[in-house]
């Protein structure tokens, strides 16, 4: 099986306990769980930002520690909608940071790279805003800037940590349509943390439920059983489906 992420017996201090799962190319996966349940820690372990106490993470079949092809992974961290408002940086400059890993005194951004930047800027609908300071944008617009920055390196996997915090409902809808398009048209594997159960009902293929340990890694319909929700959030849950 062509797995892009393999996690085996992963432990990190007291936050993550013996978690194992595999993600295959083209998956669209939501991570859900209560606050403090280890969702962000799990993502940070996969990204190599923290080192596991024990267990293994493999990316594209290679051990995380030996994995060097970082441009294959795009990451949008938590809180992008609340960036430092006094940081003097434009939309264009932020998106260009996606090429920083290969920039140096002797290699300026190529014509192809610049053309691709313009393509991505247009794709996320930021053409008119590209010379604006990031501090002048709304939460939803900032979110699109960070996704554009993550897409610049043409990643195979896009990892997002609660991307919709501080974003209005209309922008959220546009955002999830965009993620769906990236997954279905561009075949980008998507892994994101959310508290929004409506999204899970919608587009995702699988749901990772964690509360320190892995409670379930199932098809979305299995997860939306009341028993799973009750185990996850520790309350009696009643899941109601509707068509709107």
């Amino acid at each position: 099986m062509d797995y892009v992420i393999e996690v085996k017996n992963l432990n990190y201090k007291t936050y993550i306990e013996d978690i194992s799962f595999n993600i295959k190319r083209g998956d669209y996966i939501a991570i859900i769980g209560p606050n403090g349940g280890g969702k962000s820690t799990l993502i940070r372990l996969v990204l190599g930002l923290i080192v596991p106490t024990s267990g293994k993470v493999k990316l594209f079949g290679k051990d995380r520690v030996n994995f060097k092809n970082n441009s294959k992974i795009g990451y949008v961290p938590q809180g992008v909608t609340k960036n430092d408002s006094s940081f003097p940086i434009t939309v264009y400059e932020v998106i260009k940071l996606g090429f920083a890993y290969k920039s140096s005194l002797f290699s300026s951004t190529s014509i192809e790279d610049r053309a691709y930047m313009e393509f991505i800027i247009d794709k996320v609908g930021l053409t008119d805003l590209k010379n604006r300071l990031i501090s002048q944008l709304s939460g939803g617009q900032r979110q699109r800037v960070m996704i554009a920055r993550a897409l610049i390196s043409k990643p195979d996997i896009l990892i997002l940590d609660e991307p919709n915090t501080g974003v209005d409902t209309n922008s959220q809808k546009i955002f999830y349509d965009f993620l769906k398009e990236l997954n279905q048209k561009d075949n980008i594997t998507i892994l994101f943390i959310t508290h929004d159960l409506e999204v899970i009902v919608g587009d995702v293929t699988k749901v990772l439920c964690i509360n320190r340990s892995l409670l379930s890694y199932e098809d979305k319909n299995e997860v939306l059983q009341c028993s799973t929700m009750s185990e996850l959030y520790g309350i009696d849950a009643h899941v109601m489906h509707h068509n709107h």
Partner: protein
Amino acid sequence: MEILQYDFMIRAFIAGVFIAILASSLGMFVVVRRYSMLSDALAHISLLGVAFGFLFSISTTWSAMVTAVTISWLIEYLRRNYNIYSDSLLAIFLTGSLSLAIIVISLSHSFNVSLFNYLFGSIVAVSANDIYVISSFGILSVLLITNFYQKLLFVSFDEDVAFTTGINTSFLNYLLVSLVAITIGLSIKIVGALLIGALMVIPVISAMQYGKSFLKTAILAVIFSISSVVLGLIISFYVSIPSGATIVVMALLIFISSLFKNKIFR
């Protein structure tokens, strides 16, 4: 111009302009990371280096630079590996190294005469050798900043995300504190330990008032910094007042006018 008939003033202008360029361009990365206290802490740590220079009768410029770089690495190591607030860490090193500097200078019996020059700076102290060191380092630093500009900007904007794209954030952090440490070690002779922090921070904050991109803000900061140094040196020469303090007052005036202009045209 009368002022340019004096060799020591020409040396002061050359050294001052190099320091202005270095201090403001490095200051951009320091200020946006909310790490402004770093320059003040390293300035006091440089004083400890100067004290070692007096004690062992070696070049104070080199002893200041080596001490500042060594301790800047220690600060960066502690910041990355221990759960200590950055500002508290800097406060500890600032006061600790100043205390040590005073003790070491007392032991070398050069307290009154020499310390004052290094606290407030002295333009006549710039030798031809200092010019070679400052200009060589200045050119090397500008090349390094240009080479790593995008990566330094990324690390300043979001260190975690920069790391996930394969950028060696640890190397860049050590590089940045080293360049800041060397710049300060070189500068305290001219601008003074108590004032170099201001030259690193004030032009950047002034430039940020104009709401431009990072690159344009950096260019504005360099222009403000060079203007402060040149005006400060000219005024201090003709009015016979201390150069370091005059340079910082010029930077402050630019800051106030930037604030004022921003208020009017907003």
